């Protein structure tokens, strides 16, 4: 390993070292603030090292990793998302009396797993990254031990993720048996010379199970609402963004190595999964009364949307995928950030009722939440609109009429539940005031509980989340109005992919 390798790997190294440093610090002295500062500092430093790494890109590190513009762009995205999650986590954990420090070790390790995934160029690094990410998330999901849901959620996620990982490894083995290589590039080259894929095809199909589980597309999606609901809000935000984004980056890199029509059977499967996800995700979210579950269902649909651009199998499609993921990260983090800020030490503000009349109590937070929801719905002037536009354009260019139609249909259904939440935020605080409103219809016993008192008693937004939310708000609207600079940057970053 030479200096260039080290420079190219510096984001990973810094994140890994920070995790170790935190472990050491905890063993010396427990101090939440110091640990959080160290973790955030590590993430920031890793981000700062990306320009240095970009100077030596594209660079192969052994056969395992690839440090190119694409990997570094996604690394920056994951690091930024982790940083936001870290900011949200500090104040979230501060209100809870449990062991708080180890959380940051897990956060950093999970981020590290994500960084490995986006740089992976080899089945070994793929699986390594996937497992580092997954194992850390198992614990993070169940981190709020006192919560009755935590253990259940953790076990569910552990078993299902383990199952899907097993499928993945088995699939890799089959592909290896056919091609004799674990490295993406040579593997694709070899497969393209063959008459047919042979064992590699069922191998890839089985790998899709693992990928599909991480992305939570139908029918591997059923864990999402439970995990989203049971995990602490910052962890939910992490699972929704970093975990899925890293996996998608990998998927894109893996299939970019193939010629467009070579892997057609796999693409057909993914197309069906995308259509099913867009429809099922939006339908599931329609009348959901728990906001975290609602966002879980909506994320199923969103991953379906991204898959449409992915299926286009063109540079334009890659750009659309990347832009969509950025927009999805921003909007999702903003939405979960608002939920996190509204939550208190006892319970989380995840029920529709907690949002009733939010405009009159917390106008800024309600406005940001509205912007995030509108962005998720793809309304103009938000970054979500530009992203959805790019995805549809990519789909239309590739003549993917059925998926694009499903996308339009899904978006139309989706608008209902996003706007429903907006309406609830605008309604008067006392639910008896407008009993005839559609939005007050409750078919969930949970929503009959009294509103969370902490939500009725506004507290000041702490500086960390306030900073994170302001940045997100700026990007949310800024990229909606002026997407070109980011679009150009993405274009130059993903150009090396194909």
């Amino acid at each position, binding site marked *: 390993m030479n200096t260039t390798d080290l420079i190219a790997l510096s984001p990973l190294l810094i994140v890994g070292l920070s995790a170790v440093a935190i472990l050491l610090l905890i063993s010396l002295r427990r101090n939440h603030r110091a640990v959080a500062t160290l973790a955030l500092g590590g993430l920031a430093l890793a981000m700062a090292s990306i320009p240095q790494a970009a100077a030596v890109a594209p660079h192969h590190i052994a056969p395992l990793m690839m440090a190119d513009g694409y990997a570094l762009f996604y690394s920056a995205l994951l690091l930024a998302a982790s940083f936001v999650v870290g900011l949200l986590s500090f104040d979230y954990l501060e209100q809870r009396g449990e062991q708080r420090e180890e959380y940051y070790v897990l956060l950093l390790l999970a981020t590290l797993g994500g960084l490995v995934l986006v740089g992976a160029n080899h089945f070994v690094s793929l699986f390594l990254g996937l497992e580092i990410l997954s194992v850390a998330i198992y614990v993070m999901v169940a981190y709020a031990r006192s919560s009755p849901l935590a253990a259940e959620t953790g076990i569910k996620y552990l078993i299902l993720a383990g*199952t899907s990982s097993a499928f993945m490894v088995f699939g890799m083995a089959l592909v290896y048996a056919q091609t004799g290589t674990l490295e993406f590039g040579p593997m694709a080259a070899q497969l393209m010379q063959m008459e047919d894929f042979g064992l590699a095809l069922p191998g890839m199909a089985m790998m899709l199970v693992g990928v*599909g589980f991480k992305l939570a597309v139908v*029918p591997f999606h059923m864990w999402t609402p439970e995990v989203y609901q049971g995990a602490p809000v910052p962890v939910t935000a992490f699972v929704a963004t970093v975990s899925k984004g890293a996996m998608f980056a990998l998927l894109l890199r893996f299939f970019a190595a193939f010629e467009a029509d070579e892997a057609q059977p796999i693409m057909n499967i993914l197309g069906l999964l995308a259509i099913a996800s867009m429809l099922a995700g939006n339908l599931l979210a329609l009348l959901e009364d728990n906001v975290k579950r609602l966002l879980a269902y909506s994320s199923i649909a969103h991953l379906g949307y991204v898959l449409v651009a992915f299926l286009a199998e063109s540079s334009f499609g890659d750009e659309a995928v990347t832009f969509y993921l950025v927009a999805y990260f921003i909007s999702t983090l903003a939405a979960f950030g608002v939920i996190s800020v509204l939550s208190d030490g006892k319970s989380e503000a995840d029920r529709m009722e907690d949002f009733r009349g939010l405009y009159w109590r917390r106008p800024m937070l309600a406005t940001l939440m509205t912007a995030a929801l509108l962005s998720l719905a793809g309304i103009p002037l938000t970054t979500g609109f530009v992203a959805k536009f790019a995805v549809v354009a990519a789909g239309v260019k590739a003549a993917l009429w059925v998926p694009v139609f499903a996308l339009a249909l899904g978006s139309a259904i989706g608008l209902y539940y996003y706007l429903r939440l907006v309406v609830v935020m605008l309604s008067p605080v006392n639910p008896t005031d407008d009993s005839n409103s559609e939005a007050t219809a409750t078919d969930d016993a949970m929503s009959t509980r009294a509103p969370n008192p902490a939500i009725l008693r506004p507290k000041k937004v702490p500086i960390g989340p306030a900073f994170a939310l302001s940045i997100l708000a700026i990007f949310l609207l800024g990229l909606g109005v002026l997407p070109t600079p980011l679009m150009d940057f993405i274009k130059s970053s993903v150009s090396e992919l194909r």
Partner: protein
Amino acid sequence: MLNYLALLPTLPLVGFLILTAFGKSLSKRSVVAIGVGSMALAAMLTIGIAIHFLSAPPPGHVFEQHLWTWFQVGDLAPGFSLYLDALSLAMILVITLVGFLIHLYSAEFMRDDDAYARFFAYMNLFVSLMLILVLADNLLLLYLGWEGVGMCSFLLIGFWYKKPENSKAAQKAFIVTRVGDTAMAIGLFLLITQLGTLDIQELGVRASEKWPVGSGMAVAAAALLLGGAVGKSAQLPLQTWLPDAMAGPSPVSALIHAATMVTAGVYLIARTHALFALAPVVLTAVMLIGLLTQLTAGISAVHQRDIKRILAYSTISQLGYMFFALGVSSNGAAINHLMTHACFKATWFLAAGAVIIAVNHEHDIFKMGGLGKKLPVLFWTMFFAGCGPFFSKDGILAEVWFSDTGGPFLWLLGLFGVFVTSIYLFRLLFTVFLGPLKNDVHWKPGLAITIPLVILATGSVVGAIVEYPRLLGYHPYATGTEAAHASPYLHAAIGKIAVGVALAGIYVAYRLFVRHKHYEAGEVVVPHITLRMRRLFAAGWYFDRAYHAAFVVPFQATSRFLRSELIDRGYDAVVALVQTGHRQIRRSQTGRLRWYAAGIAVGAVFCLGAVLL
């Protein structure tokens, strides 16, 4: 000085912006300083511009100021360009000078209103848009002002919006004028497609090159523009909104619904006269509309009891005279009447507003009486102001006599209108101010009310003598009536007959309402007219009732029908379908781990099956 022309619409606009942004936090004194101050500056600027324009006329007596190009689509590039000639000079003088006096009056009149800042904000915005309307050098910019003043009219009629009937009146005004505005918009599209420009001067040139006199296109274009003018100026058959528009505060009635906005239709026809000249049929229609409006509204005015409704019908009738003049191509006479009428009607509306306050918000003139001793200023200003317009009207009548399309018969009908005018005006004046005292008067108008009244009344009287358009270099007696120039004495004599008839009308009014005291009973208005006819006249010839039956009822029925049936059913089905889909698919989220694992297994089987089979 002329280069400051662009400042003219800007000043009230700035006032509007300040009042809108900070109105709630400003004291009433500051609101007056901004709202009335901006108008005072605009009025002074207008006087400066007028002096410059008259003392050192720009070449061709036209001053153009191109500010910027609004947008460009193909060859069509309407600009934010201002066009000042004698006609628009006359209009801006009326708008800013009368406007300023009305603003000054409002400072006192509206003092007890909570929404003081909102009132002046709307008023300033109105003046700004009205100035844009009359200064625009192209029809699109004119249309901007045209729609803008319509919006301000809507906002100000419904100014006291908490009373539902005021909001209804505002909506009625907006919707009825919309009918005309739509016609006008279609007219603009026609002009764009046919002539490729909206520049007013250019339009005249191209139209006369391309269209022969009386050609179908010219008639259509002129008729569509006439539609807009008829709506805005409350002429038959779109006159029904104006009496209800009296729901707004009296200064609003004076400014918008007497002096300025309602004259926009007159201005439009005068401005685009080149187009109308190509369509003699439409000009005849203008004349007949004017004549009929003037007669019907005048007769209705005689049968009203509400002081402001009398003035509203009177305004419709006077606008009818202006159309009458436009119809015989005598734009000068129309503008002359427009200017004196602005002073006269503003005075009367402002004085009526003061009377209404003085008698504790009573509107029925038959519940008033003998106020002349208590409120002499109001009586005398109204009296003198009321004399002015008879002289500008005699000009119109003389033009009708000599014009090709007019003639003695129409002149006679016009003359009858003069007679009716003097009856209803002096019926009002005598009933309210003469006779025994009927009301307690605890309120006297202050200086801010008295000064505008005196100035406006003076303006009306002076206008009768000097003929303002003549001063501005806009010859009052027009185009095409060579006979008038051949025999100026006959012209003058024919006109002066009208003054005689007006005096006769005053005498009749005096006999009926002072000597015979018919007003005492209230019911007896003009003898020898049956009750049924009287009801017809008082209800404005049942236009409202007819429109209600012809348009409102079927429209509401249709909307009720559509609301409950048909189209909604389709959407309901979509909603039901989606909700059913949600309920069905939701059952898959059981919360059971084995079920979820089975889901993964099914997915794996599906993936494998898809590639293997």
